[in-house]
């Protein structure tokens, strides 16, 4: 018997027990749907993060620190060795190092990283955020060359501030894009939220408040601050800068580290702002060795091709170099695990569906014992009968796979709409949380058919082993 005849026989058998076939297929559909929507969440996350890195041109950025801190060791709780390594004689990140690095071929721009917490005040409203200082040259690069409104500063000591729309919102101002004022909920408008066009935001004066240790107060009465209930020896320093630019709304996966500055100001302007000399415990620790050096340098490369040579040259100078590319490699490993966990949850649903297939097929063999006997009596071989049942199982897998992909797609679309409704309410930009790549489509199909065939294996062998004498006995 030819293959196509075996296939048609299998189809006819499925068609004869339509309801049972539909229910069994539905099981596979749900399994594949769960698998696809789960994994597509992981791949969507990965795609968004990578995309965001790419859009912000982060792959050509390096961060140079005085001494490479072994993150793994620090995380494992081996604090002693970390502190020990910090106390070793480490080269200092000073201006001479800065100019040395600037000479390395492939380096486009380098400057000390300056980033510190500030309180911003616009009108009657205030909020806390992180201030980042950049040289005017950075205006050539992404994302600074793609401001939403206004212009990046062209002078390192200009009186200018670039603000992010997110911080603006915290200052009770919603940026109005277009002619119509943005929708403001009643609740927000009671809090004083206003919708303003960019024109009336640009040029407005922003108050930047920083905390400073009041050295005078400390020297006056050094013991006062050791007493309980004592106020910290802090005073506030106020700087006024006009808003000269508004960043584009950040992507949903932007945030953390380098990208999370609420406000960007020129590097020399920042030097004049009094502040606490550290922004993190690490920089405090590393600075304690030698307060003369910078806590870290930012290095931007001409192109991504130079990354390895530049990195090793700076490392040979005795400094630690961190690139987002390294981090991405780490993250990729994390994403594989993430996908695997999500995939396992989906796969469990599919295994349950496979049990459904086995059940259906075994039932149908019991019902069709005599028919199988007849097929053997008129010349059906074991292989042919096995194949008929294989085709049945495979068809359930194929159909369930296709429907499962459709179901998975529908589920992710709905979940995306729901999620974006909440993201929008929080003032976030629209984002595609799910991504179904081609390999997921093909993989899910292959997996569905494979699992179904595997489920059909036992029933098929059992069908082939039916004893015709027994099955055809007259009774």
């Amino acid at each position: 018997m030819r293959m196509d005849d075996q296939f048609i026989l299998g189809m006819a058998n499925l068609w004869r027990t339509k309801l049972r076939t539909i229910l069994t297929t539905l099981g596979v559909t749900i399994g594949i749907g769960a698998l696809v929507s789960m994994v597509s969440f992981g791949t969507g996350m990965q795609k968004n993060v990578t995309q965001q890195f790419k859009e912000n041109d982060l792959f050509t950025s390096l961060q140079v620190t005085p001494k490479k801190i072994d993150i793994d060791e620090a995380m494992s709780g081996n604090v002693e060795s970390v502190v020990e390594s910090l106390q070793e004689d480490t080269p200092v990140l000073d201006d001479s190092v800065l100019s040395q690095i600037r000479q390395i071929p492939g380096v486009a721009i380098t400057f000390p990283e300056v980033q510190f917490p500030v309180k911003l005040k616009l009108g009657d409203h205030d909020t806390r955020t992180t201030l980042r200082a950049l040289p005017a040259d950075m205006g050539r690069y992404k994302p600074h060359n793609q401001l939403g409104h206004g212009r990046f500063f062209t002078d390192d000591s200009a009186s200018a501030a670039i603000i992010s729309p997110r911080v603006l919102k915290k200052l009770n101002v919603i940026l109005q894009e277009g002619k119509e004022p943005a929708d403001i909920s009643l609740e927000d408008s009671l809090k004083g939220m206003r919708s303003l066009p960019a024109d009336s935001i640009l040029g407005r004066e922003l108050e930047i408040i920083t905390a400073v240790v009041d050295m005078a107060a400390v020297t006056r009465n050094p013991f006062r601050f050791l007493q309980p209930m004592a106020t910290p020896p802090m005073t506030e320093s106020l700087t006024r800068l006009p808003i000269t630019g508004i960043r584009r709304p950040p992507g949903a996966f932007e945030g953390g580290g380098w990208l999370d500055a609420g406000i960007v100001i020129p590097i020399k302007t920042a030097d004049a702002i009094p502040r606490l000399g550290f922004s993190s415990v690490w920089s405090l620790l590393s600075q304690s060795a030698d307060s003369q050096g910078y806590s870290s340098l930012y290095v931007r490369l001409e192109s991504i091709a130079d990354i390895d040579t530049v990195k090793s040259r700076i490392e040979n100078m005795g400094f630690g170099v961190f690139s987002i590319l390294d981090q991405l490699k780490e993250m990729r490993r994390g994403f594989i695990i993430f996908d695997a966990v999500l995939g396992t949850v989906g796969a469990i649903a599919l295994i349950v569906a496979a049990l459904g297939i086995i059940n259906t097929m075994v039932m149908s063999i019991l019902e069709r014992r005599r028919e199988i006997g007849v097929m053997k009596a008129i010349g059906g071989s074991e292989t042919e009968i096995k194949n008929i049942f294989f085709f049945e199982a495979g068809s359930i897998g194929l159909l369930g796979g296709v429907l499962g992909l459709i179901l998975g797609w529908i589920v992710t679309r709905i979940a995306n709409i729901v999620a974006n409704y909440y993201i929008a309410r929080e003032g976030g930009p629209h984002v595609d949380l799910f991504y179904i790549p081609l390999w997921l489509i093909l993989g899910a199909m292959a997996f569905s058919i494979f699992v179904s065939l595997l489920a059909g294996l036992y029933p098929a062998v059992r069908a082939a082993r039916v004893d015709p004498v027994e099955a055809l006995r007259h009774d």
Partner: protein
Amino acid sequence: MIPILQTHNLYKTYQKDGVKVNALQGVSFQVQEGEFVSIVGRSGSGKSTLLNLIGGLDTASSGEIRVRDKNLTRMKRQELALHRRKTVGMIFQSFNLIPSRTALENVTLALAFGGMRRRDRRSKAVDILTRVGLSDRSDHKPGELSGGEAQRVAIARALANEPSILLADEPTGNLDSSTASEVVELLQTLNRGQGVTVLMVTHDEASASAVSHRLFRLLDGKIIDEKSLRGMP
């Protein structure tokens, strides 16, 4: 003349409910091409077992079965499937048609197992159904056919792949006497008119005697009597 079928000292023993049953105890006989041979005996005499062995549905414990020049007792399972498909055609007391398929489809299924191309099957099946006098009932399912008609469909299916020998296992056992004689007459017509070799087992000695060239009597797994009723033409 070389016989189309010969068995030699055939034994079959099987376990049933833990009891050893000696179904066949040294059966030897021959069938010539074009012959109509009947084996009669009471139920439990081993006649169905004998037919299942010749039909390749079961394997002998010892002894030899030869159909044309092929030794069945040495065949592997795949070869036995081929034997059932091409060399023998079987009909049963309970017809064993597939109830979900029409008369025509039951016949084309056999043709499909025989490897015939799909477009040739239908006309071939109609031909065979005409040979058994059932061309007008070909689109009916077995449930819509009378017992006699169902057995005709079964005969058509058995003949579909032009077997060397037609094996009939109590073909009239489920039929009333007038339909039974119709079916036996059809077998006779196929044998006399179209040269189909027939081996029939039955407990109905009267109708077997009426059509057979030779008749064997089987008791407790042994042939106890052989009758030559009429000569081959």
